[in-house]
C-alpha cells in the first residue's frame, strides 16, 4: 500500500470493508451493518485527524497524492500562461510561474513544483530549486510590481538544492536577494504554504503581506531528518525533532509567523483536491481583498512591520544604558 500512511491504515481498512459489503449481491441485508460501520468510520476519522502529531502532519504534507502547485493553479485560476527562465542562466523546472486570472483579475503566480511520477520528480529535482529558479521567481514578482498586479506564491519544497552547481551560481545570493526585494515590493503579496515549507528555500518565496498555511502543511528552519541528524547523529529520530521544532500550522500561528490556517478536507488535501482548492479559494479571495485597497507605500510598510516583529528574546532593562 504505497499511498497509505501508518495512521491511515485502520481507516483505509474500514473503508475497504464497507466497500466490500456494498459490493455484495444483496446490500439491503447488510444495510444496518453498513450504516454502523460508516458511523464508526466517521468518528474514527475525526479522532485521528484532530490529534495528528507533527510527524504525521509532515507525512501528510509530503503525501505522494497531495495536490502540487500546478494542480492548485489549474483548480484556482481561470487562466494561466506559464512563463519561463531567469534571463541569466536557464529555466528551473522546480519553480513554476506565470500570469493568471483569479476571479477575473490578473495576478502573478509563482510556486515550487514537485513531480508526480519518477520521471517528473527528477525533471523537477524533487521541488528543490537552483538559483535560476529563485531568479525566475524574482523576475516574475518584479513583473507583477511593474504592472501593479498582486503576487501569489505557493510554497512546497524540501529546501533549496544543496549541489555544486547551485553553490557556483550563488544559491545564497539568489535567496537573500529575493528576501530583500520582497521586503520592498510595491505589490500585494499573498504566500501560501501548501505542503512542505523547507527552510530558506521556502522563505525565498514566502515574504507575503499575508502568509497562509494549509491545515496539514509544515514549515521549518531545517527538515526534521536534518535536525535529528545534527542533534543526535540519527536521522531516524526525525519524529522527535519535528515535535520539538514546532513546525505545524497551529504552532506557527501561535508564534505569529503565519496569519491564517486554511482548513483541508477531512483526511487531508490528497483525499479531495476540489474541496481543498475550494477552501483555499475562499482564503485567497479574502487575503487579496484585504490588500486590494492599500497604497504601494502602505503595502510595503505592512509587510516590513510584519517581519520586523518576529522573534522572541528577553530584554534586561537594568543593563540598558539609555
Amino acid at each position, binding site marked *: 500500500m504505497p499511498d497509505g500512511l501508518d495512521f491511515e491504515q485502520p481507516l483505509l481498512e474500514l473503508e475497504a470493508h464497507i466497500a466490500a459489503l456494498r459490493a455484495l449481491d444483496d446490500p439491503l441485508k447488510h444495510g444496518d451493518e453498513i450504516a454502523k460501520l460508516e458511523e464508526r468510520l466517521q468518528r474514527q476519522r475525526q479522532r485521528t485527524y484532530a490529534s495528528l502529531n507533527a510527524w504525521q502532519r509532515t507525512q501528510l504534507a509530503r503525501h505522494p497524492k497531495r495536490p502540487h502547485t500546478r494542480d492548485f493553479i489549474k483548480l484556482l485560476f481561470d487562466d494561466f500562461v506559464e512563463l519561463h527562465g531567469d534571463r541569466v542562466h536557464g529555466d528551473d523546472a522546480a519553480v513554476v510561474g506565470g500570469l493568471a486570472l483569479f476571479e477575473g483579475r490578473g495576478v502573478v503566480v509563482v510556486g515550487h513544483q514537485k513531480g508526480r511520477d519518477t520521471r517528473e520528480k527528477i525533471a523537477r529535482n524533487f521541488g528543490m530549486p537552483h538559483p535560476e529558479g529563485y531568479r525566475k521567481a524574482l523576475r516574475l514578482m518584479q513583473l507583477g510590481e511593474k504592472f501593479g498586479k498582486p503576487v501569489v506564491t505557493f510554497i512546497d519544497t524540501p529546501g533549496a*538544492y544543496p549541489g555544486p552547481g547551485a553553490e557556483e551560481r550563488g544559491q545564497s545570493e539568489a*535567496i537573500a536577494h529575493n528576501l*530583500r526585494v520582497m*521586503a520592498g515590493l510595491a505589490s500585494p503579496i499573498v504566500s501560501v504554504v501548501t505542503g512542505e515549507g523547507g527552510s530558506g528555500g521556502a522563505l525565498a518565496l514566502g515574504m507575503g503581506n499575508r502568509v497562509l498555511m494549509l491545515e496539514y502543511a509544515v514549515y*521549518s528552519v531545517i527538515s526534521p531528518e536534518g535536525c535529528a541528524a*545534527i542533534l*543526535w547523529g540519527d536521522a531516524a529520530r526525525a519524529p522527535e525533532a519535528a515535535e520539538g*521544532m514546532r*513546525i505545524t500550522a497551529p504552532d506557527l500561528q501561535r508564534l505569529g509567523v503565519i496569519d491564517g490556517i486554511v482548513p483541508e478536507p477531512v483526511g487531508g488535501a490528497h483525499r479531495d483536491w476540489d474541496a481543498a482548492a475550494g477552501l483555499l479559494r475562499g482564503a485567497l479571495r479574502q487575503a487579496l481583498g484585504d490588500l486590494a485597497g492599500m497604497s504601494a507605500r502602505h503595502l510595503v510598510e505592512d509587510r516590513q512591520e510584519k517581519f*520586523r516583529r518576529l522573534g522572541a528574546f528577553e530584554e534586561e532593562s537594568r543593563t540598558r544604558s539609555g
Partner: protein
Amino acid sequence: MAWFSRKKPEETTAAPRRTAQVAEGLWIKCDSCKEIIYRAEVERAGKVCPKCRYPFRISARERILTLADTGTFEEHHANLTSADPLGFKDTKRYRDRVKAAQQKTGVGDAVVCGLARIGGLPTVLCAFEFGFMGGSMGSVVGEKLTRSIELAIAKHVPVVIVAASGGARMQEGILSLMQMAKTATALEQLGRAGLPFLSVLTDPTTGGVTASFAMLGDVILAEPRALIGFAGPRVIAETIRQPLPDGFQRSEFQLEHGQVDMVVDRRDLKETLRRILVFFNE
C-alpha cells in the same frame, strides 16, 4: 607541559584571565596547512599563519579590536538574551546550552554590536562570535542586527558586519528562519536611506546567514580561505555522493564565481574598509 597543542576556541578569546592558558603551548598547528608554528609569531601576525597566511578564527571582541579605532567602540543592545521560545531540548536543554556558551565566550549571544570609528569614520560595527553555538542566528542575533541597522539609519552612518556563522539556530525553529527575513528587511530600509552595507565574510559563513544579510552587502569582502556557502560541504558531498574538489566553497572559489568583490588579508582589512567607507563618505 605540552610543547604544542591543538588550537582550542578558548585560546582565541580576548578574556585577560585566560592569558596564562594561551602561554601553555608555545607551538600550535595551523588548521589549514597543518604546519607546526611558533605561537608568538602567529600572534604578531594578527592571528594569521605565517606559513600559509590562513587567518585563524578569532572572537568577536578580538575582531572589533582589530577594526575599530582604539577606544571608539561603544557596545549597543548587549542586554538582549535568548528566551527559549520553543522550550527546546535535545541532548541538553537549550537554556543550558545558552548559559554554557555565555560562560565560555563572555558574550550574551553570537553577535556583538555597536558604534565605532574605522579610520576616523563613524560606522555601526557588528562582529559574530563563532564560539557561541557556532555563531548561529536566532532571535537575539536577528534582533541585535536589525536594531543596529536601524541605529545606523537614525545616526546616518554605514553598517559593517563581520560574519562567522553556521547559519540559523535550530533550537529556535521557525523564529530563527524569520530572522533572515527580518535582517533582509532592515537592509532594504538601509539601502533606501542611501546608506551602504559592507559585509565581511570569515571562516565559516554558511546557511541562513549567507542566504540573508551576509550576501546583501553593497560590497562583499572575504578573508582568505574562508568557507562560504549555502549548504555545508558534508551535505553537498552526501547529496552528489562524490568528494568535493579542494578549495570548493572557499573565498577564492567564491571570488572566481563572482560571489564576492575581493579577498582581503586580515592585516589589510581595516585599511580596505576605510578606503571603501571614504568613497561613500565623500
